Each structure stands twice: as structure tokens, then as C-alpha cells.
């Protein structure tokens, strides 16, 4: 007997698959998400996985959202409970009125269920074992069989799933037909034995448009290909490894000389992160576009070289796919926790350029732009992704490239310019923007060579420990950083319908949850202007935004509100006016969380006059 009416919802619900790591469920689950997309209904899937290869629990969550809310929602409407290890927790996590889908081959005691949910048992193991004898086949097809059963329960069009299977196994007819067969085994069993559809349904729509479905890491790697990176050095670390792996795959496709077959790139898996950044700096010093991809622990190891890049003014691009720290932290959970570590990386006075893409489309754009910026500003550019963007498929606008675009190689003095008698001082600020000219090694037999060092030197790169010479250089670096303000992507502002004294600042992967939260807050009567920061150093519009609002919430995914610290520090503003909204348990921030935190604070701010309150 159910205590609660079953949830009824079309194109707006969350399905979570609980699996065992290494059971081959990932491809079936991803196919489920893609199949819904093919119905024209946006989805936002997320992998929740352990730092393990086989045996530990893993979850795959699909938010079906016709409204296009791509942030995590929180809560589960339907649990596909395929992992006995996590059964109790999984069942407990279902929303009242929700659905539990499970393998009913072995009877379960009634105490293992809940009264307020709908329980759907499908004898998956029995169906699988009666059809297949090979153990590996049994394991893999069981996943396709539950996909088939779900398609019936959710009233999905099986043709669309068959189409996906056809694309995936194109040219492998045997695999194709056996997968389709497995799909229908599950689907037919459900249609014959269960009440289909249930309250949750997928209905064809047209809300996907021309959007693409891609992981941020793959998009960033593609951005590096388009941005002209020729050298990549990296060391494996979750969640960044797939950047280098995707770069390798993209290069194999697009970067081989058609005639000679030779590679127009060099990829080195370094012995550690120190070597990786060293290779990047050596290559960039020598005029190639080079990058590395890493995560928090790697950043810690790279900091000495990052200081060299800052001080000796050598371009470098570091993609930091952030994960929960400190130390080893939670390697497979998401956070935005390296803001301070990257902004001020290395000993001494340093400042670095950070880019904050919100999704794969921006990861592509910013990755490509990072190489222009690195060569223009002659310093390290951090592309600050996180696990949530990097390792999940995200629906985003198609990637765009302007074929007329040339790379900005920055200020490089050529042999011709040297021949003309141009004064070359490696650290000489000839244009007043703090950016000096550099020469590539091997440019000219007698002119333009210099000695690169991490020690102090004068404008002509001659070693010097003179205080005034040192200070002159440090001041120029400040000027250079000011120049950078206008070169990096600007913040994007979106104002509330009515003028308001309240604003909110956010960045990166918080974006979809924030957009959704604004709707929830408006429903509660709270008006907020929004500013999405896309880079550090902060553009002057950040200071204007702060000046225009009494209170500004800074929403971020770390404990210490690091972006807020950076804003307070760089803008010299009263910290009281910046209200931290932080989420840092390793799960992606949700609209519900933001709306509650900001909403509660807003309610608290709205002081009701005493007389009115008592009357």
C-alpha cells in the first residue's frame, strides 16, 4: 500500500542508476541519456564514480529536463538499483512517490522496500541467463535489457534507441543485432508483465535544437587542437587525464600530414607534473604552443615552474580540471577549490591569469584563446575547469570557429626587425603596456640572443641585484597584468526585471544551477542581478557591479569562498558586502541549494517594521 501518490511527470524527472564499477553499465546508461536527447528532450547526466577500477559503487544520474536546466537537481525520482552494496542507501534516497526499479530474480524481504514508492521488479538475471551462456555477455546484455525495460516503462520510442545502437555498432552487424535483440528482450518483458507507462514519461519535444552533447575535457582538448597547440606534456591524474587522451585522439585524426603521415604535434607523458610543466615551458620558450592538463595536486607540484613562467615571462597554458582537495582530497568529486592556489601560485609576488569556462562550448573557446593570451601576455594562463564540466557529457551550443582567424603570436622580434636595427631588450617595455618583445632561439647570428633566467635582471636581460632594477621589473609586471584585464573574456551581466540592490557573482560550472536558481528565487519574490565572472584579472565591470549593489552573493564550490577572497583582495572592498554562498561536499551545486541559501539570507535581510509585525 502506498502512502503517497506516485510522481507523475513528463520530461522532468531524475533517474539514477546504481551500478558496480566495471560492470559495463556506463555505455548502456549513456545510451539511455542519448536516447532521451533524440526525443528532443534535454538531459543533464552526471557520473558519480569512485577512485577505483572495479568493484566499488558507481552511479549515473540523468536529469530529464524539458526546461533545459542542466545543473544537478538533487533528489531521485527513479532509482535503477543494480548494486546490492548500496541498496539501502539507494532506496532511502528516492523521493516520496518515486519509483524503484530492481532485478527481481531473487526474492527480497519486504523490509527492503518502502511503502511510499512504486516498486518495479524485473527478473533481469533470469531473462539474461536463459538467453546467454557466456559470463561477459550476460553481464553486458543485462544492462541493455534494463535499458529496454526502462524504455517501455517511460514510454520511449524504441526506434530511437535502435538508431543509436545502429550508429554505435556501425559495421559490426553481429554486435548490432545482438544489442537490439537484448533491448527488445527487456522491453517486451516489461510490456507483457508490467503496467506501462509509469507516471514518469518521455514525450517527444523540440527543445534540444542544434545543441551538441560533449564532455568538457574533450572540448578543451579540441580547443587546444584548434588553438594551435603542438606540444602537450602531461601526467595522469583524475579528472584531467581525459584531456590529454582526447588531445591525442583529436591529433591522430586531424594533425597528421596527409602525404608523409608525420605528426604535427608532440605529446609526452611526463614522469611527473614537474617534468610536464618543464616541457611546456621549454617548448613555449622556443616558440611552440604548449600545454599541460592536471588537477590540484599537480598544480602544487608545478608551482616553482609557474613562478618562473611569471618572472621570466614564458608563455604556458595549464588546464586545471579541479577536484576536491586539499591533499588527495576526493579525487573523483568536483569542486572549484584551486582559485587562490592558481591565482597566486608560486613563491614571491605573483599573479596569474585564470579563465573560467561555464560549459564545454566555452571550454573549447577559452582553450583556443588561452594560447593567444599566453603568447600575447607571455605568462601562464590557467584554464579552470572542474570535474563536473570536464568528465560529464553536457548539452551545449555547437562549437564554432572562424576560418579567417590567425593566431596571435604576441610580440616576437624577428630577424628582419633585428636587422632593421630595432632596439631589443627582452624586458624592455617599448609600448607602455608592460609587455616586452621576445626572440626565439636561433633567430639571428649576432643579434637578439639573451639569457633567460629566474634571477633578477635588467631590461636587457642582464643579471642584476640592484634594488631599483628589480623594482622596475616588478612594476612592469603589474602593468602587464593590468593590460591583461582587457584581453581576457569579460564578465557577463544579466539584470533582474526590476531594479535591485542585490547581486550575485558566480562562475564556471555553477552556471546552470545559478540560472535555474534565479527562477526559483524570483518565485519567492527575490530579485537579483547576476554577474558571471569569466576571467581573472577582474575586468573593471566587476568593481562597477560591486559598487551598484548593497549586497552581492558570491556563489562557489569550495569551503573558503576563494573567489570572494580574491575579489576582496583585488578590489579592496568591504568583505561584509560580499556574502559567501558555498557548497563543497564534492557533489555539483544545485539550484535548490543556491535558492535556499540566498532566499534565507534575503528573508533575513528584510526586516519587518515592529509595528507592522505586532498589529
Amino acid at each position, binding site marked *: 500500500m502506498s502512502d503517497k501518490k506516485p510522481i507523475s511527470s513528463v520530461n522532468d524527472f531524475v533517474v539514477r542508476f546504481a551500478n558496480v564499477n566495471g560492470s559495463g553499465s556506463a555505455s548502456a546508461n549513456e545510451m539511455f541519456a542519448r536516447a532521451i536527447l533524440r526525443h528532443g528532450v534535454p538531459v543533464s547526466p552526471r557520473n558519480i564514480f569512485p577512485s577505483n577500477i572495479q568493484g566499488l559503487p558507481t552511479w549515473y544520474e540523468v536529469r530529464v529536463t524539458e526546461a533545459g536546466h542542466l545543473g544537478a537537481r538533487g533528489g531521485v525520482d527513479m532509482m535503477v538499483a543494480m548494486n546490492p552494496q548500496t541498496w539501502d542507501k539507494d532506496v532511502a534516497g528516492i523521493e516520496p512517490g518515486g519509483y524503484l526499479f530492481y532485478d527481481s530474480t531473487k526474492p527480497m524481504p519486504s523490509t527492503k522496500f518502502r511503502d511510499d514508492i512504486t516498486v518495479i521488479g524485473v527478473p533481469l538475471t533470469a531473462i539474461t541467463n536463459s538467453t546467454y551462456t557466456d559470463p561477459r555477455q550476460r553481464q553486458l546484455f543485462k544492462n541493455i535489457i534494463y535499458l529496454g525495460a526502462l524504455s517501455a516503462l517511460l514510454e520511449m520510442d524504441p526506434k530511437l534507441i535502435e538508431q543509436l545502437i545502429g550508429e554505435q555498432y556501425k559495421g559490426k552487424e553481429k554486435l548490432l543485432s545482438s544489442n537490439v535483440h537484448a533491448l527488445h528482450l527487456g522491453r517486451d518483458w516489461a510490456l507483457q508483465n508490467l503496467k506501462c507507462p509509469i507516471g514518469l514519461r518521455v514525450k517527444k519535444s523540440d527543445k534540444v535544437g542544434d545543441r551538441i552533447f560533449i564532455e568538457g575535457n574533450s572540448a578543451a582538448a579540441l580547443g587546444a587542437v584548434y588553438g594551435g597547440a603542438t606540444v602537450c606534456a602531461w601526467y595522469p591524474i583524475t579528472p584531467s587525464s581525459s584531456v590529454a587522451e582526447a588531445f591525442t585522439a583529436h591529433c591522430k585524426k586531424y594533425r597528421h600530414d596527409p602525404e608523409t603521415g608525420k605528426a604535427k604535434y608532440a605529446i609526452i607523458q611526463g614522469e611527473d607534473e614537474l617534468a610536464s610543466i618543464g616541457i611546456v615551458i*621549454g617548448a613555449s620558450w622556443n616558440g611552440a604552443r604548449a600545454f599541460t592538463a592536471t588537477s590540484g595536486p599537480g598544480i602544487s607540484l608545478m608551482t*616553482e615552474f609557474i613562478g618562473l613562467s611569471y618572472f621570466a615571462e614564458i608563455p604556458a597554458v595549464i588546464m586545471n580540471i579541479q577536484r576536491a582537495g586539499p591533499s588527495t582530497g576526493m579525487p573523483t568529486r568536483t569542486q572549484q577549490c584551486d582559485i587562490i592556489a592558481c591565482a597566486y601560485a608560486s613563491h614571491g609576488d605573483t599573479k596569474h591569469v585564470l579563465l573560467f569556462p561555464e560549459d564545454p562550448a566555452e571550454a573549447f573557446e577559452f582553450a583556443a584563446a588561452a594560447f593567444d593570451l599566453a603568447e600575447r601576455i607571455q605568462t601562464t594562463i590557467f584554464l579552470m575547469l572542474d570535474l563536473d564540466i570536464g568528465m560529464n557529457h553536457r548539452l551545449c551550443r555547437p562549437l564554432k570557429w572562424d576560418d579567417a582567424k590567425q593566431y596571435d603570436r604576441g610580440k616576437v622580434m624577428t630577424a628582419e626587425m633585428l636587422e632593421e636595427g630595432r632596439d631589443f631588450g627582452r624586458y624592455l617595455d617599448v609600448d607602455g603596456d608592460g609587455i616586452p618583445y621576445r626572440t626565439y632561439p636561433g633567430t639571428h647570428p649576432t643579434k637578439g640572443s639573451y639569457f633567460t633566467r629566474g634571477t633578477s635582471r635588467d631590461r636587457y636581460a642582464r643579471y642584476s641585484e640592484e634594488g631599483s632594477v628589480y623594482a622596475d621589473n616588478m612594476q612592469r609586471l603589474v602593468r602587464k597584468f593590468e593590460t591583461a584585464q582587457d584581453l581576457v573574456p569579460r564578465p557577463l551581466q544579466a539584470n533582474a526585471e526590476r531594479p535591485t540592490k542585490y547581486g550575485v557573482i558566480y562562475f564556471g560550472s555553477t552556471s546552470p544551477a545559478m540560472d535555474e536558481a534565479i527562477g526559483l528565487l524570483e518565485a519567492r519574490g527575490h530579485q537579483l542581478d547576476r554577474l558571471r565572472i569569466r576571467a581573472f584579472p577582474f575586468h573593471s565591470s566587476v568593481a562597477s557591479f560591486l559598487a551598484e549593489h548593497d549586497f552581492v552573493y558570491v556563489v562557489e564550490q569550495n569551503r573558503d569562498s576563494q573567489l570572494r577572497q580574491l575579489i576582496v583582495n583585488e578590489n579592496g572592498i568591504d568583505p561584509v558586502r560580499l556574502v559567501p554562498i558555498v557548497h563543497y561536499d564534492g557533489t555539483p551545486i544545485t539550484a535548490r541549494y543556491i535558492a535556499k541559501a540566498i532566499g534565507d539570507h534575503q528573508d533575513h535581510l528584510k526586516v519587518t517594521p515592529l509595528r507592522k509585525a505586532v498589529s
Partner: protein
Amino acid sequence: MTYIAKPKFHHPGLKKNDLGYTHRDYEGKISTLCAGCGHDSITASIIEACYELSIEPHRVAKISGIGCSSKTPDYFLGNSHGFNSVHGRMPSVLTGANLANRDLIYLGVSGDGDSASIGFGQFAHSIRRGVNMTYIVENNGVYGLTKGQFSATADRGSKSKKGVTNTDNAIDLVAIALQLGATFVARSFSGDKNQLVPLIAAAIGHKGASFIDVISPCIAFNNHAGSTKSFDYVREHNDAVNRLDVLVGRDPIAVDYAPGTVQVVEQHDGSKIALRKIDADYDPHDRLGAQTFLAKHAAKGQIVTGLLYVDPDADDLHAHLNTVETPLNTLEADTLCPGSAVLDKINASLR
């Protein structure tokens, strides 16, 4: 200090090499190391080797780490770009530079602290990868710039200037380089320029990872009795297995060698190495034999010098990676960027 410029005038009759450069064109700034430092002799040998090979100075990239040895690139090849990078990290910086432009000559200069202690890993991995470079370690067994601490190449039982006995085992970089697949391995002594100059010249001509360990006594902190890296000690225990002559271009092989004592090795760049055997049984093409020979002689307290191993048919990291002949740093959007039409196809595949 290194900002002291050297006077530019020179004797009008100074000899010129095939490119018309004099010795002076290969020099750098005035050394700031201690008078009598072994490193300055190595600097002089590098200058001599580059002059003799008629290398265009600006086509050399000289890269170092941190320490006394790593300062020396400022003292030779003043028209070359130099990079005094991070302690122990010369190998990675050099590897990256080499990937960016395969057309330059890469000279890595390091010390025993830089390569055997803090940078032991980077030393090992650059050798493993077969980076086309000449990697010179100016090995004095001591941290000079911080005043005399033992380095990882200091022999067990050797005494510091302050009288402390080293109890740690020594790392022999030559043995490690052999084990890791370096295709040109040599050891020499800063006090033996006749041996060192041709070794450097041959290493530069070698395609692949060349490694030269040069024992270079620290005059200030490691040249006393009880040290195994002092001038006296090295002279007494030096066991040279061969001597070389590097023959550039079509130079005929000198005729004054006794028959059967010379082995000629042709290198990728067309130069020839004439190896004069001192130890008749030593075969520099036998990696395993070299390792055994070294181990046996080290046990007897001898310092084996000379060209210890060479593989004239070696290839390098670029060959392993199958990179294009054109330096990567010259490629632009027209050859690197797949363009919007390809991107449209990629987009279509992601729906």
C-alpha cells in the same frame, strides 16, 4: 658578476674556422666562478669543440638548471639563447625546447647536485626518451654554491673539507645513463682537455641522447686530501680506455695511427670519430660489456674515462614520435587548425 662584458677587440691574426668565426665568437661573458674551477676548463672545451665543428653559435640552445655548473652557459656562446631554468629541471626544459624546434643543437649543462640529487628523475627520463642533446654534467661531488655539502655523486668514504666522512653510496651517472639506453656515453676529466674537446664534439654530432660525465674538481670545497673528486685523486685514478679524434667533413683520417689501434665510427652528421684504443679489450659498441667493465673498475677505485659507449645508428625522440621535419614552432593556423568545416562535422557527430 655576469654582467661584466668582455672586451670585444681581438688579435687581427686570430685563426678562423670554416664559417669565418674566430674563437672569440664562441665565447661568452667573463666567468664569475672561482679561479681554477674545473668548470671553466669545461667551458673552454665547449668553446673549442663548437669552434672546431664550425657550428653557427646562434643555432645552439644552451640550457641549464641551478648551481655553479648551471651558471656556465653564460660564459660560452654569447650569441646563443641560454636558459638558466629551475634546479634539477634542465632535462624537461630541454626536452620541450627540442620538441618545439628540432633544427637547433641542444646543449644541456648540469651539475651533480642538479642531475644526481634534485633532478635525478628528470636526468633519467630525458635519457630514456632519447632526446637529441648533449647532456654534460660538471661533476665535482659537492654543492659549491652553498659551500661544500656532499652531493649524491660523492663516493662513500670520501671526506668533506670539514672532515666529515660520506656514509651514503654514490650514484654513478654514467652507469645509470648506460642502463637507461643513452646512445652516446662518455666520461672525462676537466683537467684533460685533449680528451674532453673531441668527446664534446663527437657528442654534438651524435643524433640521440649523448651524456658526458665530466669530473670537475671544486677548487674551493672538494680539492683536499680524502676527496675522490680532487685534481690529484682523479689524475692518479684516471683509467682512460680510449682517445678520440673527431674528423669533420671529408678530412682524411690521419695516417699516424698504428694499424689495428684505430676504430672509425661515422656519425649521422657525416663526421667521423677516430677512436684510438688504449685498452685493447674495450669495445665501445658493447653496452653490457661497458656496464660490466665500469662496475669492475669502480670496485678497484679506478675512474674509467673515454668514449664508453656509442650507437652510431641511434635515433631520437622525434623519430619515436614521428614528428614532421618542419620545426613545430614555425607551424601556423593554416597547417594546425582543422577549420570550421571539420568542426561542423564534429558537431554533427555529437548530436
